[in-house]
């Protein structure tokens, strides 16, 4: 089962932060308050798109071919992600 990383508090809808990191090998536990990286705060579909885009060497044309979508559709998806990232940056 693929577990989704929860981003918002189920109780008050506030942005969640990382409190604990755990090493599976030696069972070391690091405790503290860490903010999630901006990319991790994006919806999973956006994260997948960013990965596909990077794998295509940042080429919208190749990304469009790989996703079987038109060039302007892929450009619009990218512009929407940029807007969401800018919004997250502003809120931080």
């Amino acid at each position, binding site marked *: 089962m693929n577990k989704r990383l929860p981003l918002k508090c189920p109780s008050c809808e506030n942005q969640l932060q990382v409190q604990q990191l755990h090493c599976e090998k030696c069972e070391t536990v690091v405790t503290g308050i860490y903010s999630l990286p901006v990319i991790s705060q994006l919806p999973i579909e956006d994260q997948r798109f960013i990965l596909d885009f990077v794998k295509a060497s940042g080429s919208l044309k190749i990304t469009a071919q790989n996703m079987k979508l*038109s060039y302007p559709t892929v450009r619009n998806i990218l512009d929407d992600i940029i807007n969401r990232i800018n919004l997250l940056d502003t809120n931080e």
Partner: protein
Amino acid sequence: MNNRFLYNPFTKIAGIKSFIIGIAGLIITTFICFITGTHFNGLLNIDFAKDSPFWVYLIENLSNWIFISIFLHLSGLILSKSKIRVIDTLGTSLLARIPLIIAPLTRTIPIFQSFIIQSWEMYFITGLYLASLIWTIILLFNAFRISCNLRYEKLIISFIISMLLSEVCTKLALKFLI
């Protein structure tokens, strides 16, 4: 092919591909208009008269496409924050016109080739034209939305203004050229 593709093929087809398919559609439509005497003298008009040379039909179809493309692209350049491409606006708006082939194509059937005013044949052709026009406008709207990445009120208002301006310019151009 799913229903979504019929009213919004532009998520899959745009740019040079839509331009090539659209040009082929425009040439075929113009040729059928010529042999059936169907005039598209304005984006929202249809007339029947078999007395014009081929170039008249070509000018009508070309100006219907070019003016709306120019106004939609200008709207995109002014209002969109995305880096829009002229080939997307030209290609997708050309592809959006393909349903307009339905009415002239129906007129190749012998009973629809010549008819009297207010006959059922005339109403049938007019009905087909209206249906294909609505389909074309929906396609044109989606073409504009995707090519220029506009949304909400910016999209709706600029689309309506572009349609009105292109209708006026097409009428004036056809009056001047033909």
